[in-house]
């Protein structure tokens, strides 16, 4: 991420130190994670010590210090999804992708995350991939859903070649 892009985000909040959360959120949305150099730069600009920035970045669930995969899989573990069997969906994703929640596949294609509630309880168990919702999930449907993203990926690569 280049410095001017970060500065543009910081300027959007008039370099106000109390807007640190919003600034980090915008960077996270753009980069999908918070690179170390960026945090250092933000700290210098806002005059916030780096340890405080790290404290915030590690306290809130919304932030990641590690690079993310191309596709972000978010399994809802809200109560409604839980009683309808959401933990089994996580197990199945774990089996298919070989990663646990919070981890990214080696090929950087998928990151697996869980969320406390997406508020789409009627469709539970719900999985959101890149913001697209898949409702009424079951362990048996996992493979088919993943396939959609794998083939999209293939199209993208083939298209490039």
């Amino acid at each position: 991420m280049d410095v001017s892009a970060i500065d543009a985000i910081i300027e959007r909040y008039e370099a106000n130190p109390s807007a640190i959360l919003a600034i980090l959120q915008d960077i996270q949305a753009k980069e999908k994670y918070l690179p170390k150099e960026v945090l250092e730069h933000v700290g210098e600009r806002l005059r916030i010590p780096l340890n405080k920035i790290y404290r915030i970045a590690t306290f809130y669930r919304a932030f990641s210090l590690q690079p993310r995969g191309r596709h972000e899989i978010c399994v809802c573990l809200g109560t409604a999804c839980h009683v309808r069997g959401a933990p089994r969906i996580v197990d199945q994703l774990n089996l298919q992708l070989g990663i646990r929640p919070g981890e990214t596949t080696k090929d950087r294609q998928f990151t697996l995350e869980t969320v406390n509630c997406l508020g789409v309880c009627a469709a539970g168990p719900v999985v959101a991939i890149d913001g697209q919702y898949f409702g009424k999930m079951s362990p048996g449907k996992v493979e088919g859903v993943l396939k959609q993203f794998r083939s999209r990926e293939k199209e993208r690569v083939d298209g490039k070649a």
Partner: protein
Amino acid sequence: MGRLNSPEELERFRSEILSQRDVRQPLITVCGGTGCHASGCHQVVDAFRKVMEQHAQGNGVGLRVTGCHGFCERGPLVVIHPQKVFYQKVKPEDAAAIFEKTVLKGELLEHLLYDHPATGEKIGKEEEVPFYKKQMRIIFGNNGSIDPQRIEDYLAVGGYRALAKALFLMKPQEIINEVKKAKLRGRGGGGFPAGVKWEQCRNAPGEIKYVVCNADEGDPGAYMDRSLLEGNPHSVLEGMIIGAYAIGSHEGYVYVRNEYPLAVENIGIAIRQARDLGLLGRNILGSGFDFDVKVSRGGGAFVCGESTALMASIEGNVGEPRAKHIHTVISGLWERPTNLNNVETWANVPVIIDRGADWYTQIGTEESKGTKIFSLVGKVNNTGLVEVPMGITLREIVYDIGGGIPGGKKLKAVQTGGPSGGCIPESLMDLPVDFDRLTEVGSMMGSGGMIVMDESTCMVDVAKYFMNFLKDESCGKCTSCREGTKRMHELLTDITEGRGTLEHIDLLEELGWVTAEASLCALGGTAPNPVLSTIRYFRDEYKEHILNKRCPAKVCRALLKYRILSEVCTMCGRCAKACPSGAISGKVKTKKQEGIPFKIDQEKCIKCGMCFEACKFKAIEVE
């Protein structure tokens, strides 16, 4: 339209909007809430647009994407006005037929009507659907008729009338008295009288005061605040402006979860529109009163729903609560007097000011007035958001509105209050729902999550689920909460995995008591509720796990065993194909060869349940 500089100008503008609207003109409304969004409402809207563009009579028909109607189970929802024909589970390919038959000719499309799950009866109008019939939608009702991104729609249903009344016909103290008289209690969970809080904040010393709207709805399984903020953001905003005027504040914040992108967008749009019309900002409606609102997005920490943690987060700090020896109404945000209420509480304010406390107090029970919005989810037929008068029984909510339990299963418990609440057993279903009754039985109102559980829900697993949630979300400041939730989770894990002893239950009760007593904020203070309430009402289920190493609901994986009934097995081989660990062996029966019934190797079985799901002949048994 430029700024409105007086209440008269507001009314003139309102009449102008209404004069351009003909209620007899056909109008198609499509629910645009997140629930319907997940079931594909946007494709439906696009399909309608296309049909209307191509049709000669398309111009004379309105199309509106509205806020959440509440009946998420049956989305995408479409209502055709003026007849109010209610269509559910609408697909993009239905658009042409709906337009040509229903909108133009008034004919009903049978296959899109709601059919009663018990009787199979087809119902044509929204208000006749049982899900809506017993509700009282004074706060949530407008969601279905307005486009949340257009302030004109809110004005058309009487929006900002209460604000004009408050600013020009009432003194701040009169507003506070009215809210006190209405006995409005905080809808975020605590149930503290809002009017009393406002008065304390008004009387607190200091020039600068803040009002905050808590939209950090972190309770899993609860989404009513999101739907209000998404579907009718101006009602929340109007409540905040009235509150700020009564308290004497000129600056406000809406702290909203970032996981709710549509809510963040819609409240942002509402703020800009209100500013442009002079309903927010400097000299509101020419009254001389200034007030403006900023949006602050949350970082995904449950504890930030706690008032002091939320304020720390707005200030740009880590969201840790502090001791409240001095209340936030005296010293809150940036150590100034701060009044915080949640989304639903604010949305109640315009209704109280507009229709008066005398009208409002007719609804509800002695100490809990008005309505409450619940998110009715879990093992229930009609999942969705329901607004009911306080005092209605749980049974009415689950059976009359919720349509009972799917698959003919038996109701076991209703969980209210999110991770801070408890499980209420079937035997207490006739309990009238209000703040005090729920607390008496060991649960709480909370923000309004209501999760229905049936016989296939394991109560020990539910307690473990909440404890896992709380141990992750505990900020770690108090030892009792940080360690207490963790140890309780370990004990519950032991029980669900067959390592439990009867002492585990005693220890859980003791730990629960310590955690509740010794923690600073409400997160720790109420954390043991899910455990203590399930022990209180479902002790036998705990004992069954401990003494017989059995999970009666067949949920706790370590205690389960999958077995194939050889006499039922058709030797199709589906299970073996589905098994990810190669634990199933046998031989597929074909025309040419004899088969061998399939068998599960218990050593290799990882108990994922894939075979159970794959088997079409119910040949797999779980014990």
